[in-house]
């Protein structure tokens, strides 16, 4: 399971990095999204990978990390997802505004050579 997750995070991060470095704003948005997926998975994995383990203790029980999933990374990833959503939405608006102002979707607002 660790290997698969590591490969998934690696592929997402690599594709995201590539796209962020591209000259079109839409590619940059998708790249940022992919990067944030990679980071979210990464945060999630720092709590350790475990199937079928609950993050919340049953009443009256003193839980150990051996039997339970660590709830903190789950809380962190939730926050990170929400913030990522908001900033991506904001960026989309800026992208449209830039398109309207410059008439091109190049990140520098002008085509190469023009």
């Amino acid at each position, binding site marked *: 399971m660790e290997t698969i997750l590591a490969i998934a995070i690696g592929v997402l991060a690599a594709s995201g990095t590539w796209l962020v470095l591209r000259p079109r704003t839409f590619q940059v948005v998708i790249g940022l999204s992919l990067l944030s997926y990679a980071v979210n998975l990464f945060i999630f994995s*720092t709590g350790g990978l475990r199937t079928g383990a609950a993050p919340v203790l049953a009443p009256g029980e*003193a839980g*150990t*990390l051996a039997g339970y999933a660590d709830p903190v990374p789950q809380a962190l990833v939730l926050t990170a997802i929400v913030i990522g959503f908001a900033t991506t939405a*904001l960026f989309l608006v*800026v992208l449209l505004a830039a398109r309207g*102002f*410059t008439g091109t979707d190049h990140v520098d*607002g002008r085509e190469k050579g023009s």
Partner: protein
Amino acid sequence: MSGWGDHLLILPILVPLIAGAVMILIGERRRRTLAALGVVSTLAVAALALALLGIAGTAEPGAMVRVYRLGDWPAAFGIVLVLDRLAAVMLVLTSVLALAALVFALARWHRAGTYFHPLFQFQIMGLNGAFLTGDLFNLFVFFEVMLAASYGLALHGSTRLRVQSAMHYIVINLVASLLFLIGVSVIYGVTGTLNMADLAGRIPSIAAADRGLMEAGCAVLGVAFVIKAAIWPLGFWLPTTYAAASAPAAAMLSILSKVGIYAILRLWLLLFGDDAGASAGFGGTWLLVGGLATIGFGSVVVLAAQSAARLVGGCVLVSSGTLLAAIAMGVVGVTQGALFYLASSVLGIAAFFLLIELFERGRDAGADVLAVTREAFGEEDEVLSESEESAGIAIPVGTAVLGLSFIACALILAGLPPLSGFVGKLAMLVPLLAPGEAPSAGAWVLLGALLVSGLVTTIAMVRTGIDVFWASPDSVARIRLVEIGPVLLLLGLCIALTAKPQPVMQYLGAAAASLHQPQDYAGGVPTDRPPPGEGKAR
């Protein structure tokens, strides 16, 4: 957690949050109500910051910190806010800047687009939160609040140039935020805590096998911070963005870049101080080299600048680089001087951003921008501001005031005597070059870099000054009290810093001393959680 006095700690975050939320409910149409609410809220935050400054100053040595536990959860589970002298100083700086920028914006800028006032309040909230929090992930959240608001403010009164540069700014900061998250989660994965004080206690006892991973996590986190602080080669976005932003927004941005410096100052000394065992001093060389390179790059930007706004952008870079290099020296006295320099340069840079707007107005560039925004936001406003404008003072008094303010800004930013920029630089260099012990090579390089950057800034300032005040004689400076007032307030504070540096220096000295004694901070925040994996989780 006894009595209402303890709740003062959370108020600098709550007041702007509530004010901003109420502003959104009030709606954009009632500008006067919004403006009044904004001023009241900002004044309240300033009063709170001063009160907290007093509280933090009375703390005895060894009990440097006041801790506020959100929801009264034990510090190991909940999130804490921590007040010490450094946080209090940063709060006061923020509120002074906010007050000046807001009053300045009331003259005309707050009408140039929508939601200026709520965004401004959220910006204050994010800044205050970032300075007060004692939890790494909470720091991330406040960074995001602050940045989201700053995106809005950077776009305020959108023009083509503004949208363009804000887009670059947003992409770079989003990537930096992702790095921040990676760093935080690696640190959590290794140490099992996000509480800064707890973290400082655990670093010495990390297993040797995990130490590399931990340091890598901290390095990634550090990269996120230096992107905010615009350290070379990660700071190319800064001059363009700051130059393009509207004047009040740019004035607020001048402290935003210092948040990265603040985070490094706090975390680097806390986590990698002398107590950190094998990790002590980790990354110090990189900070020094990065700082020096930034001073160099900033000087080039200053020299190459063709507009006053870009010139100040270069000054922001120079001051970031100076601060980082000074912090990297790891000497208490230098940190004290660096804090003084930080206060002086933030005030000076903000004053200059506001000032530029005033003297550029007599020329063409600024007028174009305003014309565009007025077209976009209706005739009614135009009539209003025209009638107000005619009440402005015409030359020559206006030009004289502008000229004197310009000279003051130039002296502060170039670090020339007699103003506070010079005092700050001197305070940084004196402990480094103290007689008795041989100064390190780094100290000499820093001395050289400071001298060269000061010279370069002077040259560029003189050039701009000649261009603005002498070479264009028919420019009519119309200024109004509400606009020149904030500039004079900021400059007056710098002059006060110069005239009475003693109490300030003493306070900052105590702040620096406690920063270099991380056990005060770590001991002041109660943590009672056993390391993960050792039996009970509670």
